[in-house]
């Protein structure tokens, strides 16, 4: 970089640095302590697009959605105090799901920090547990190198959110600006080095020795761009693959070796295979409690290999036999060529048998007077040829999406997995739409979740983003209701929830709205929405009493699944279901 140093304010340096980091879009909301940076933005409008959100939480989810769709760092901006604290949920969401975002917050001037000045919050202190790292910039001379470092930390290793707190006087201060190009000096930031041949050898031996191995594809498969490498490993040695919720899309669902999702609402045959396996090859995942169930009885007869870039995740929940602290793609490239070619016909036949048993119980073949959530999702899959980018929210519809929408391409499902943040999907989709211009984008969200961040409909209209919002409305906080039904004797405390008239609401916001409550209306209505430029909304009025099956109750053994009961319960609903559970 051949740049002559020039005198700039801190505020201008922020934008100069963002541009050099390749940032094209910033999601934010102005306010007192970030005013200088917004004022400077006027000079940079032609290079960076700013999206005015309706709530700072939305800004962080948008940055997160953008990051997950693109693999680049997403950027959110807010003022001090309430602006910054509104970002905490978004930071925690990004932290749990390893999403690289940089949040820039204004702060009161350095001279009054600690005095409880107007709109002052110790946002660094408040966000230490939910950020990968954070910076309070006290000197303008350190600003450029700090921003550069923040982007580096956010996107490397196990990605995560980084917060930069920027006092107002630092934004106003003037200094000579030259974007640093020296190597980043972070003595305490340890990225894994090459894996020794000894470990690779052990890895190969364990796979070759196994009769019933399984590959687990986690979020790390996408983050490490290891989709091809995982498939190569699977095909070389004929190893079936199970995915985590965030691993969906990392391997093509239509491939015969790909079994589907594991865990609490995973497919029965997947969980059975896990319990029966003699080797688990865990690729970039963290054995969340939603994945393992009861740890004491978890996959009791298997040896375990764990490839993970974050050493602190290894042996945290599940003790493994071989730990490989490394970049996933790199390791798999070393392992696969050394493996024997295997067919594993018997193992695969066993799993296929379990799969056939489950298919019989599939809700798709049910006759029902009312529309079922699962059927709605399946139609959305058909209506988009399985090629859409889906951003799902949190709850029953999220699990149904994972079960009934088959994803064949990487980065086509974005959802809040670890934190389970209701209200994530709409803003995340708006963010993702700034990267994804080819695929159609569908938000799949419940009537509870949409109402948590519904104000971002205004942002969607203002930016005229091409997203279709499918609200799966069952009049309940469905997943909580399901737990009440199963574990609290159907005492529905505060789970029935009312909704506005979504069609009118969409119109009020200036977008088109539709409503469907019959199966055969879905595709024609989707077609209408698909033809329209800009955001559209479709309300799916679905059966209130339906539940997500199969289910492994929290803390239960993974093989101890509750499977879908006889279809006749659909007619007279809860009563029969309650009897069954008793």
């Amino acid at each position, binding site marked *: 970089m051949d740049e002559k140093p020039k005198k700039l304010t801190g505020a201008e340096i922020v934008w100069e640095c963002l541009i050099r980091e390749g940032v094209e879009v910033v999601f934010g909301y102005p306010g007192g302590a970030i005013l200088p940076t917004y004022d400077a933005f006027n000079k940079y409008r032609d290079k960076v697009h700013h999206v005015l959100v309706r709530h700072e939480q939305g800004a962080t989810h948008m940055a997160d959605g953008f990051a997950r769709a693109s693999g680049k760092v997403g950027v959110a901006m807010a003022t001090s105090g309430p602006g910054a604290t509104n970002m905490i949920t978004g930071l925690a969401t990004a932290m749990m799901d390893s999403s690289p975002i940089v949040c820039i917050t204004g702060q009161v001037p350095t001279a009054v920090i600690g005095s409880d000045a107007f709109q002052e919050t110790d946002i660094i202190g408040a966000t230490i547990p939910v950020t990968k790292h954070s910076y*309070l910039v006290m000197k303008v001379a350190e600003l450029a190198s700090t921003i550069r470092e923040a982007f580096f930390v956010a996107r490397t290793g196990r990605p995560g959110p980084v917060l930069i707190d920027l006092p107002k006087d630092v934004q106003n201060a003037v200094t000579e600006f030259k974007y640093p190009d020296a190597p980043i000096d972070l003595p305490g930031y340890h990225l894994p080095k090459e894996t020794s041949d000894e470990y690779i050898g052990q890895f190969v031996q364990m796979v070759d020795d196994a009769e019933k191995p399984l590959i687990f594809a986690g979020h790390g498969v996408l983050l490490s761009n290891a989709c091809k490498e995982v498939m190569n490993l699977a095909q070389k040695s004929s190893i079936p693959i199970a995915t985590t919720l965030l691993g969906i899309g990392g391997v093509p669902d239509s491939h015969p070796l790909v079994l589907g999702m594991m865990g609490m609402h995973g497919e029965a045959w997947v969980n059975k295979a896990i319990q029966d396996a003699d080797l688990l090859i865990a690729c970039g995942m963290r054995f969340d409690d939603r994945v393992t169930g009861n740890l004491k009885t978890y996959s009791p007869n298997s040896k375990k290999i764990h490839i993970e870039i974050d050493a602190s995740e290894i042996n945290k929940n599940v003790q493994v036999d071989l730990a490989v602290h490394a970049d996933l793609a790199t390791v798999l490239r070393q392992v696969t060529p050394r493996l024997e070619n295997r067919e594993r016909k018997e193992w695969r036949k066993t799993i296929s048998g379990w799969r056939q048993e489950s298919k019989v119980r599939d809700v798709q073949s049910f006759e029902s007077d009312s529309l079922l959530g699962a059927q709605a999702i399946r139609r959305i899959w058909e209506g988009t040829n399985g090629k859409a980018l889906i951003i799902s929210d949190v709850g029953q519809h999220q699990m149904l999406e994972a079960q009934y929408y088959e994803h064949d391409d990487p980065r086509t499902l974005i959802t809040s997995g670890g934190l389970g943040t209701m209200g994530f999907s709409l803003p995340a989709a708006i963010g993702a739409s700034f990267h994804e211009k080819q695929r159609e984008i569908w938000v799949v969200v419940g009537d509870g979740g949409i109402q948590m961040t519904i104000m971002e409909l205004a942002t969607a209209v203002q930016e005229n983003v091409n997203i279709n919002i499918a609200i799966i409305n069952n009049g309940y906080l469905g997943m909580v209701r399901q737990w009440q039904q199963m574990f609290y004797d159907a005492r529905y405390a505060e789970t029935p929830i009312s909704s506005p008239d979504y069609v009118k609401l969409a119109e009020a916001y200036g977008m088109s709205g539709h409503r469907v409550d019959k199966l055969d209306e879905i595709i024609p209505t989707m077609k209408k929405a698909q033809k329209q430029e800009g955001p559209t909304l479709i309300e799916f009025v679905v059966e209130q009493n339906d539940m997500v099956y199969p289910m492994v109750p929290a803390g239960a053994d993974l093989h101890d699944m509750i499977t879908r009961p006889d279809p006749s319960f659909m007619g007279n609903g809860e009563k029969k279901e309650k009897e069954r559970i008793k």
Partner: protein
Amino acid sequence: MKQTLITLVEDKPGVLNRIASLFRRRNFNIESLVVGHSETPGVSRMTIVADEKDAHKRGNIYFNLLKLVNVVAVKDVSNLPCVSRECLLVKVTIGPDELNSLNTITKQFGARIVDMGAETAIVEAVDEEETINEFVEALEPFNITELTRTGKIVMRCGKTHRVSGTRINTQPDDIMWSPEQVSSYH
């Protein structure tokens, strides 16, 4: 046995906050934590003693510490030969006929009286944790009005050294400073 971790951190604002936050968040118990300068300018040295017996959880503490961006290096010295010291200040009230016995106990433990008031004395001791415990116990007949301990600081012994006439080979110096040895740790 307690887990003792020598932790080198960048001398930057908020680092102590990050460490304390980590221990609280992950539900790890800190027994003691001592911070001070190290031999390198800009790098502080912490000695952290954690109360965790489970080997896997110990590994978890180690790698979580190392994950903090401001933590340059961590060394688990729990099972390695170390020089370990803690400093104690204790104030006791003493009558005129008690001074002799205080003097005797103090000498016996290699401690010293560093302040004499009209009715009180302050005693200072620098020793291993266990010896300090014994010393405090020995002082119990006196009326202890104030007591403060620094917590433990430790330093690895030389690579090969004598303990009671036996030569002990210690592990190489570079073990567990970096995250390279994930498998070897667990």
